[in-house]
């Protein structure tokens, strides 16, 4: 079988070679490895050896021809063997040449619109101009090289003076605010919406109005966050049958001028339980648990400007009446702003009453450094079986939230039960 003679690729950069001279004529015998022709590259002159033993069957190119590499230039084989008419790419090359690995680079579209072309402006200025449909030709430049700077375009962006003042104050980038006014003019509501959006990502709500946080709101807020994040808290809800207590209270109040509230009874009941059971009167010190002697009950009072917790001191030593008076005077003081520091410091436990708002149950936030806060909920009517008779009973939830680092579940539960038992047997409260 005839063997092809081809222009060899002799070097990594060789593209073509020149045939200097054939050393053999067609029909002449050649031996494998014998010089067949001389070629010249741009670097060297070299001999192409016969690829096989036989006769030179044909020569496609003659002396002086410039031939691309890997092109067949002749054949060696048995006399009379058929060969192709024309030179071609050496057989195997045509079949297996590596496909071109061309990296396709996506053409990037120019981002900036044409109208900014030809104007000397910083990229940022151009970006803002495009975003806000501002013709840079109309913008007076103030840059040191006579270029339009971001600030120059910013000046052109329609925004109400009020919106600008608020944005400056709040550090809002006005170029990022979409205007809702005439021709996208940025208005106050747009800036406020942006602020709200930044504060609560994902939600855009138009702010109707903002009211500054009062000092008290700030303090209360900070303390709540601290308590909420620091304290591993658990809430236990206990249902109390208040039917008897309500009747009892009605009876007592009948001839009284200063009516006793349900809250007074609850405070007294809690105080009474605490007289003997002080396990929940604890606080966390730096390295120790502090056990308190005094039964000082904080009563959460909601004020317009925040929450304050005046303290009924030594509640365990006070009569129901004294407690009632103390609570009344403290909340009056709280509401009129007349509380003294001493009035709201030193609590060892707290009570928060949301019963008047119909709350069924809730998780109050522990009033640090207390370990426990008792949430008092609404009294609700409930049908209950009493001595096999369906009766309408008045039931109320007590939500006891406690710092689990200081108080264990059983301690808290027992405490709740004692409070419940007292409230369900109201005579006991007074005994």
């Amino acid at each position: 079988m005839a063997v092809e003679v081809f222009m060899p690729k002799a070097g990594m950069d060789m593209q073509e070679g020149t045939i200097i001279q054939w050393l053999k004529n067609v029909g002449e015998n050649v031996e494998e490895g014998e010089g067949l022709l001389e070629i010249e590259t741009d670097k060297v002159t070299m001999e192409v050896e016969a690829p096989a033993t036989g006769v030179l069957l044909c020569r496609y190119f003659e002396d002086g021809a410039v031939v691309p590499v890997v092109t067949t230039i002749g054949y060696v084989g048995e006399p009379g063997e058929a060969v192709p008419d024309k030179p071609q790419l050496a057989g195997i090359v045509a079949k297996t040449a590596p496909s071109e690995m061309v990296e396709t680079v996506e053409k990037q579209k120019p981002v900036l619109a044409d109208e900014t072309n030809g104007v000397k402006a910083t990229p940022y200025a151009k970006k803002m101009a495009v975003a806000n449909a501002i013709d840079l030709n109309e913008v007076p430049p103030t840059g040191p090289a006579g270029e339009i700077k971001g600030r120059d375009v910013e000046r052109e962006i329609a925004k109400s003076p009020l919106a600008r003042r608020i944005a400056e104050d709040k550090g809002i980038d006005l170029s990022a605010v979409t205007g809702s006014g005439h021709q996208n003019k940025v208005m106050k509501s747009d800036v406020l919406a942006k602020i709200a959006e930044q504060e609560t990502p994902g939600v855009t709500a138009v702010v109707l109005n903002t009211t500054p946080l009062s000092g008290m709101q700030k303090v209360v807020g900070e303390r709540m966050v601290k308590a909420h994040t620091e304290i591993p808290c658990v809430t236990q809800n206990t249902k109390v049958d208040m039917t008897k207590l309500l009747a009892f209270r009605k009876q007592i109040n009948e001839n009284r001028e200063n009516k006793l509230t349900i809250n007074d009874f609850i405070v007294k009941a809690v105080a009474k339980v605490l007289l003997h059971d002080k396990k929940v009167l604890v606080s966390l010190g730096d390295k120790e648990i502090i056990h308190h002697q005094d039964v000082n009950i904080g009563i959460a009072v909601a004020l317009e400007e925040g929450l304050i917790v005046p303290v009924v001191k030594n509640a365990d030593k006070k009569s129901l009446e004294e407690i009632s008076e103390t609570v009344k005077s403290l909340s009056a003081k709280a509401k009129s702003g007349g509380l003294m520091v001493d009035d709201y410091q030193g609590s060892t436990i707290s009570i928060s009453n949301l019963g008047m708002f119909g709350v069924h149950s809730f998780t109050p936030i522990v009033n640090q450094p207390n370990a426990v806060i008792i949430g008092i909920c609404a009294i609700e009517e409930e049908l209950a079986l009493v001595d096999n008779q369906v009766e309408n009973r008045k039931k109320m939830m007590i939500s006891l939230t406690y710092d689990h680092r200081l108080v264990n579940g059983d301690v808290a539960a027992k405490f709740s039960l004692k409070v419940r038992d007292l409230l369900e047997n109201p005579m006991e409260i007074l005994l």
Partner: protein
Amino acid sequence: MKNGFDVAVIGGGPGGYVAAIKASQLGGSVVLFEKDAVGGTCLNRGCIPTKTYVKTAEYIKHIKYAHSRGIRIDVSQLGVNMVDVVANKNEVVKKLTTGVAGLLDSNQVKVIKGTATLTNDGKVFCDGQSYEAKNIILAGGSKPRVLDIPGIKSQGVLTSDTLLDLEEVPDRLVIIGGGVIGCEFATAFAAFGSEVTIVEFTDQLVKPMGKDIYKYLRKAIKAQGIKTVLNTAVESIERSEAGILVVKTSDQKTIAADKVLVATGRRADLECLGDRKNEIAMDGTFVLVDCEMRTSIPNVFCIGDMNGQMQLAHAASKMGETAAVNAMGGNEEVDLRHVANCLYTLPEAATVGLTEEDAKKEHDIAVGTFSLNANGRALASGETDGFVKVIIEKKYGEILGVQIVAPVAAEMISEAALCMTMEITAHEVAAMVHPHPTYCEAFMEACADALGKCIHLPRK
């Protein structure tokens, strides 16, 4: 489609005709129904007629005071010929209504005269014929509220509509209601020579404009010889055989009058609701609409006095424009926060935004005032009664409200309203150069005062 329109507008007042023209400008085919004359209460029986009267009163006032400026004039015979006053008013009204009709015509709005009502099949019925429209804008306007008082229907008890046709000057005129209408008529008729008494149920006149306005107004009214009886209701009106009207008040006093004007407000004229009266959602005695002026019936809009949002002609026009845009497929909302209130007495009063009392409730405010006593133009004009008061939000200087009493308060208030709409703050106003001498300088000075940097006020 026969009789089919893109928009049908019922009522040709300042809300309705504006809506019709706007809808037409937006490419709609529009029909407008008007039972009387186009222009509505405003042109025919309200704003414009009263302003002609007030202007006449102003002439009288100037003439009276002319001598103090060195003009030699005999005012002993000064008086009005009421027939001519009415004729003059009618001429003005006619010019304006003709103008409106021309506008409607040039905008190819089909105007149908007659009382139109809604029918259950979603069409508009008028004068025996049904009209179809993709959208309907109700602009039926209002009519004077007449209290249910014994004797209120007596002869000589008039409403603002009928008082305007009175061709004589009553010697004694009792006005029930100290609102804008009451005060404006009081001003006019006091100047014409009537002895005017205003009986007001609340503790102040034009209550919605706030205390500051009232404080000035009270003085001005008094100076014009108008009596005011506050905190007083009218219990009955009796007509004596001599034709004298006796107004009995809640404090058991009686006031004699030749004519009584009932100016106790205006209520929505719901006649055009027709068959759909029970279908449409109401807000009290007004038609309930959203801020796009849509009623509870999807393709029916309602504007102006009918929806009770703001009973002012200019507010009605704005609502009409918005309703027309939305009826034509747009999506606009009416913003009435910065619509000014004007009172055409002598001097005028005008307000926009919040009063000090209201602003205080929600904002940390600063207040600036500037009296016309210190305004060059006012001094030169001998018109120093008045002031400009600006209420701003302290932090950013946002203008929350402006109250003005001045000879041209109604003209001046637009600058304030513009500032508020454009969110121009007191800082910019104070920094802007105002021409001198003008009344408008007072606004600039008041803004500067609110910021604590007024040049023309003694240091506080």
